[in-house]
């Protein structure tokens, strides 16, 4: 029943009587082809294996050609002035050729006391070695120091199978500078091999695992060479048949300035956070710091289990590049977007004022201003300079969530900046649909008030904020931040120059933008500005502070009396000189407290360093501020 039903459903046709017979014959032909082919294969195999087997067996034993890969020196990474950030040095590896080892246990017994390496690590390496060809040297200890080398060298005759191998390794002349950007190398793993990203790499090779080393692996790695050798039956070298020289990798010149990078890292000190400094006129990254740092040297010599645990600490997360792999609530720095939106949508102008008495009533709820005594009559200049929350509650309610979200996207938030480093976060610009999908709730007016002051669900990365403030500084062009200036091939000729692409324009007219910029100047230069700590002698600075709440506080408490994880994030975004910007900076300090008192001084250090570097020496002196200003202006033009 069921079967015939399916048959009619699928229009199954049977063979016609003639067809069937014909196809039977054709199948017979197929049998013939199969058996004929098998006969050909069997006769060829018996020709090779039975009749000529002896000859081939001898050929195989006399097969004395070895192809040895020659490692290519990895390209260097340099700063914008050509200072070496990551170079190449010879790296001495202690290796074991399994084929030449009679008794691995007795060898290890002799070898272990000579190595500065815990026994467990060595044993893991020995176990991994079993997967590699027996005649190739397998690394037991990478990057051995001189003590180890000399101790082993002296006893090499008692250690059959042990060889000391030299491969190119990384050196960092200035120490661990910008580790999150530079990244590190590691041994090729099975997953790397499967991913197909490393076409020419072999087991045991070092490949880029993080940061620039990973992103520009192909360019930095160069091309391996090959030496074809003839050896005798004891594997001793008889002659070199041919050699193909390795091609060294390209050198990468970054847009990063070493001095500025160091200033950023010193400014953060042992606080957790990130600093991003951009050249607003080109979008190039001048410094990109994230703390805590990890030690590149430790990765270069092979990281120990204990060190690995430290760099993966769940609270401080040293391996996370906080400039782009983590998103935070922007706090009051978001008011730049709000001000631009309100002006552009003609909700306010320069003269519009709102009265702040310390809080804002929405229905029965009371939304507080950070200043409980209130700011009184507030216009846009005062609102940004003193970061009046009530002013922004008012315009936020008038704008509504849809327009706020549209402008936030227009300012480059909620999407990746496209910095070309792995793991960049998108951040979040909340909308009605987002809340409906995520929380199955309708959007409330209270939510709008929260996002108006950069709280609630809004999330941004420091690199997004740096890009945002740079676009305000340069008059409205949003660039895709870039960190590579040029690639230089091994012959010293420039191969490729990089320029930052435009991502878009700010959705705010020049006239309105100039109002925002004037207000941002007041944040630093004004008498009651929240970022007075960022003043630099001789240069006018514009910026905006932010203090992002991490936990909801029912009572106002002193930040020092809270647990570290519960303290507010401190933000500061700035550019200088205010009228002709040469640098834009975003600073985030995780759980740092107030933006004005914690983040602003770090930005000041970075910007001061930049003007020192650009100024004709001797550096800024108070009485020379006028001539210095002129010098800065001439540099900018």
């Amino acid at each position: 029943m069921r079967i015939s039903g399916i048959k009619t459903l699928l229009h199954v046709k049977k063979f016609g009587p003639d067809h069937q017979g014909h196809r039977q014959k054709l199948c017979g032909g197929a049998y013939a082809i199969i058996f004929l082919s098998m006969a050909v294969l069997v006769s060829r195999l018996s020709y090779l294996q039975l009749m000529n087997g002896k000859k081939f067996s001898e050929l195989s034993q006399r097969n004395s050609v070895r192809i040895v890969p020659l490692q290519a020196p990895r390209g260097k990474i340099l700063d914008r002035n050509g200072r070496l950030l990551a170079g190449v040095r010879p790296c001495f590896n202690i290796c074991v050729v399994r084929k030449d080892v009679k008794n691995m246990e007795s060898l290890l017994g002799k070898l272990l006391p000579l190595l500065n390496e815990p026994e467990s690590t060595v044993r893991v390496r020995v176990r991994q070695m079993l997967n590699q060809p027996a005649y190739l040297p397998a690394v037991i200890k990478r990057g051995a120091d001189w003590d180890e080398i000399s101790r082993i060298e002296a006893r090499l005759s008692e250690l059959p199978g042990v060889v000391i191998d030299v491969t190119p390794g990384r050196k960092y002349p200035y120490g661990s500078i910008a580790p999150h950007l530079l990244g590190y190398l590691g041994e090729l793993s099975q997953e790397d091999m499967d991913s197909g990203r490393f076409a020419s790499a072999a087991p045991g090779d070092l490949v880029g695992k993080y940061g620039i080393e990973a992103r520009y692996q192909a360019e930095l790695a160069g091309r391996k060479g090959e030496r074809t050798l003839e050896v005798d039956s004891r594997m001793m070298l008889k002659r070199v048949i041919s050699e193909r020289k390795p091609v060294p990798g390209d050198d990468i010149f970054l847009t990063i300035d070493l001095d500025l990078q160091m200033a950023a890292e010193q400014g953060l000190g042992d606080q957790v956070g990130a600093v991003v400094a951009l050249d607003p006129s080109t979008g190039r990254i001048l410094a990109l710091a994230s703390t805590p740092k990890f030690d590149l040297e430790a990765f270069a010599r092979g990281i120990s289990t204990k060190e690995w645990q430290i760099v993966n600490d769940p609270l401080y997360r040293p391996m996370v590049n906080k400039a782009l792999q983590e998103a935070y609530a922007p706090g009051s720095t978001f008011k730049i977007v709000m001000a631009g939106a309100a002006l552009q949508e003609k909700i306010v102008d320069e003269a519009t004022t709102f009265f702040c008495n310390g809080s804002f009533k929405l229905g029965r709820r009371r939304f507080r201003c950070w200043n409980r005594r209130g700011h009184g009559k507030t216009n846009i200049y005062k609102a940004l300079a003193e970061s009046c929350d009530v002013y922004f509650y008012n315009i936020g309610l008038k704008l509504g969530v849809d327009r706020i979200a549209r402008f936030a996207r227009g300012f480059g938030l909620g999407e990746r900046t496209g910095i070309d480093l792995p793991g960049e976060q998108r951040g979040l610009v909340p909308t009605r649909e987002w809340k409906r999908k995520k929380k199955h709730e309708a959007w409330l007016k209270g939510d709008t008030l929260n996002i108006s002051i950069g709280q609630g669900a809004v999330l941004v990365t420091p690199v997004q904020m740096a890009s945002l403030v740079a676009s305000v500084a340069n008059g409205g062009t949003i660039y895709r931040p870039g960190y590579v200036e040029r690639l230089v091939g091994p012959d010293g000729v420039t191969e490729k120059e990089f320029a930052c692409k435009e991502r878009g324009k700010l959705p705010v007219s020049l006239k309105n933008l100039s109002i925002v910029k004037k207000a941002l100047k007041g944040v630093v230069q004004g008498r009651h500005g929240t970022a007075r700590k960022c003043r630099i002698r001789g240069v006018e600075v514009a910026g905006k502070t932010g203090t992002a709440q991490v936990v909801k506080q029912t009572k106002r408490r002193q930040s020092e009396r809270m647990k570290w994880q519960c303290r507010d994030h401190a933000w500061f975004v700035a550019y200088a000189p205010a009228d002709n910007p040469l640098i834009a900076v975003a600073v985030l300090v995780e759980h740092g407290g107030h933006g004005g008192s914690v983040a602003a001084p770090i930005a000041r250090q970075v910007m001061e360093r930049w003007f020192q570097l650009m100024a004709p020496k001797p550096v800024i002196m108070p009485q020379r501020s006028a001539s210095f200003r002129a010098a800065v202006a001439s540099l900018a033009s």
Partner: protein
Amino acid sequence: MFDKRYIENFDWWLFLAVMGLMIVGFINLNSASAATGFPFQYKQLQWYVIGLVFMFGFMCFDYHVLPSVSLYIWGLTVFLLVLVLFMGKSVGGSQRWLSLGVMRLQPSELAKLSTVIVLSSWFYKDEREQYRLRDLWLPLLITAVPALLIYKQPDLGTALLLVILFASIVYIAGIRWTSVVIVFASAAPLLPLGWKLLKPYQRRRIESFLNPETDPFGSGYHVIQSKIAVGSGQLTGTGYMHGSQAQLKFLPEVHTDFAFSVWSEEWGFLGDMVLLSLFTILLCRGIAIAQESKEPFGTYLAFGVTAMIFWQMLVNICMVIGLMPVVGVPLPLISYGGSSVLTTMMGIGLMLNVRARRFMFH
């Protein structure tokens, strides 16, 4: 509702041959992996298990639904092949891989099976006693689109395999012998043009195949070393994990294209006979299933899948024993590769499917 005739008609011989090939494949990869330094054999074991699941999956539905979805199968294949050209991973100079998060897919492998299914469906829907050349333009187009996309990767071996599959299915569907003569007569003058279409490295492979000793360290190197490996196996082989050609890296690609050389070197002529017997059982069962089917679609399907396995086996083995130029075609179930194992096992599942449902027409 389950009909126990499905179990009675399960083809145990075919299944045992497949299991035998998997055992040989695993044993051999265990040795080849030691030579490459990566444990490919365990990954392959995972693929075998997944492949068996797919095989049973492909037995469970009535294969007669395939003609009605064949258009979608073809469309999906072409879509994947276009995708791989634009965003595929490049390995060794050609773009063959599509990254799917945890695993990588090689759409050109899937194209082999989907071509068989789609062509079988077309010939089934448009059934005649014999086909003339002018009847065949549509199935030719069906084959040519994926074949050209694969040729662009570039992967000449697989592209040619699709054309051979087309010829095989045309053979079983029935073609006038005069048409065959016309094709061969008109193809002969086109050969020089074909030579021009080849990439320089492909020409070098053919030249070095015709005369390998001219350039023993260049492109002829692999074939010479492979012949030495196979020959030095002699009657009983050099011993498991003791093939010096494979273990000392004289052979390239020991886990994929040259897996047969490793087997031959370490197990000798006797080992080769075991392997070839397993393939012979598999192929003969495939033809028998095609013969026993009471309706044309089952015949085409079983015949097409058998042809797919047969030609890959023949080309791969001929290549490593120096009877053919080097083209990258895997040895089914023996070479390492998830997409290849899955494709083969899905095909086997379809053959078992045809066999299990033959009673529907009694």
